[in-house]
């Protein structure tokens, strides 16, 4: 028996199409000579950069250095934001204590804090983690608080009348009920962590994607800048994909608007 050919799925093909359109436009304006290579390098030039970087192993070193910084910095911000946000959501006193401070710091530009981080922490890796931490923690803690606050009161009431104590309420109801929202918060803030990467690698680094982008700026090496940007985007895409998979795995019960 023949298996029927899979029907063409438009929704699944759309991401590929959007990338294809951009790639085509890129080819047309560069190979067509519409824009000089100083402004937009050709795909060939960027690919050559990538291949030579892969060959001598430097590219992986840069990718790994950046990924590590982003992950460690973000991990510590999640580690602190999770209990912090949960407590804020459930305790008025705790919120009153911390909210104004968090709202204040949240608006400080992280770039402007870099000199202070160097002064306090030196120029080692810790300083780089701290920049990422500063960039994400204050946002994440408020997001966690918000997600946890929006847990349906009915679940809490049901659990309390079934005999759950305070700790069980957190563990058995608040945490699982807010897990889908928390995973979304994580996904968003990891994205932001990557945007702080360049800031983190601004000072005293010798490796990392942010570092090579900054270095290339000095030499107007647009092809290297493009390579760095593309790689950051790809790693971001991969992280996003992995977290979405994780969400499906951890909260299979959760149906989102637009899910099929």
């Amino acid at each position, binding site marked *: 028996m023949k298996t029927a050919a899979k029907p063409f799925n438009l929704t699944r093909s759309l991401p590929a199409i959007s990338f294809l359109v951009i790639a085509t436009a890129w080819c047309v304006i560069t190979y067509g000579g519409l824009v000089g290579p100083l402004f937009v390098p050709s795909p060939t030039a960027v690919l050559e950069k990538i291949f030579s970087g892969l060959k001598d192993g430097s590219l992986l070193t840069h990718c790994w250095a950046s990924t590590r910084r982003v992950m460690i910095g973000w991990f510590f911000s999640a580690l602190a934001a999770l209990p912090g946000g949960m407590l804020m959501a459930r305790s008025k006193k705790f919120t009153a204590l911390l909210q104004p401070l968090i709202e204040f710091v949240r608006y400080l530009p992280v770039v402007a804090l870099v000199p202070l981080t160097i002064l306090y922490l030196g120029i080692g890796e810790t300083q780089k983690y701290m920049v990422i931490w500063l960039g994400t923690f204050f946002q994440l803690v408020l997001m966690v608080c918000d997600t946890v606050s929006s847990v349906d009161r009915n679940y809490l*009431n*049901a*659990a309390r*009348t079934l005999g759950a104590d305070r700790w069980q309420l957190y563990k*058995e109801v608040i945490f*699982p*009920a807010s897990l889908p929202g928390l995973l979304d918060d994580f996904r968003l803030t990891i994205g932001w962590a990557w945007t702080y990467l360049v800031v983190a690698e601004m000072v005293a680094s010798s490796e990392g994607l942010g570092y090579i982008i900054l270095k290339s700026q000095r030499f107007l090496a647009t092809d290297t800048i493009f390579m760095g940007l593309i790689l950051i985007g790809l790693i971001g895409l991969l992280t996003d994909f992995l977290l979405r998979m994780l969400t499906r795995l951890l909260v299979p*019960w959760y149906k989102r608007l637009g899910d099929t």
Partner: protein
Amino acid sequence: MEKLTVEHVSKIYNTPNGSLLAVKDVSFTVEEGEFVVIVGNSGCGKTSLLNMIGGLEEKTEGSIRVSGQEVTGPGPDRGMVFQGYSLFPWLTVQKNVEFGLKMRGIDAKTRAETARKYVSLVGLEGFADTLPDALSGGMKQRAAIARTLANAPEILLMDEPFGALDAQTRIVMQELLARVSRETGSTVLFITHDIDEAILLGTRILVMSRRPGTVQKILPVSLPGKRDHTALTSPEFLALKREIMDLLWTEQVL
């Protein structure tokens, strides 16, 4: 024996538009094994009253005791079934029903057995491993009832549990609840604004007035014969229904 004693209970909500007297000086008792139904118009304070008994809401005045113990907060001695659906969507039917037992530290094996018993008591055998999202409204409410019963509460507090169901499913659920509460010998305090439902299920009916909710009258129900859909047209049924309607309606005109 008195299971539940409510004495001079009042509830005032503080709202941005001033204070609102929702429940005013309500007193009544529920005996062990009784099925007391509270009827009243929408907004008369039924949910407020039940939530105070459940310990989910502070009472402003008065005393509420369960088996002689003053109520100070929620506890597993008072099982509640809510107006909306409150099953945990991340747990299967079986795990939902086990929830209360788990909270009370009962071991996994006993828990699973007890839960299975109650899952089949409400006729959900084939759906033990289903997530709530995949259940119909009636099935969800059956699961919620099983979850509350499995915890063996001293009294069952039910807030319009069938309010969201269609007429047919409602009747099926009413008969199921009547059977289950008989079989388990439960003491039940049940809220509804459906008079038929009140008469079919209740051994006594407490009629509340419009806001501020007070006790208008407490009526015993004595119907000859079986309490199923055939009872809906018996003269005794109709007479009682008329009396309750008068109590609820007359007031509306005034």
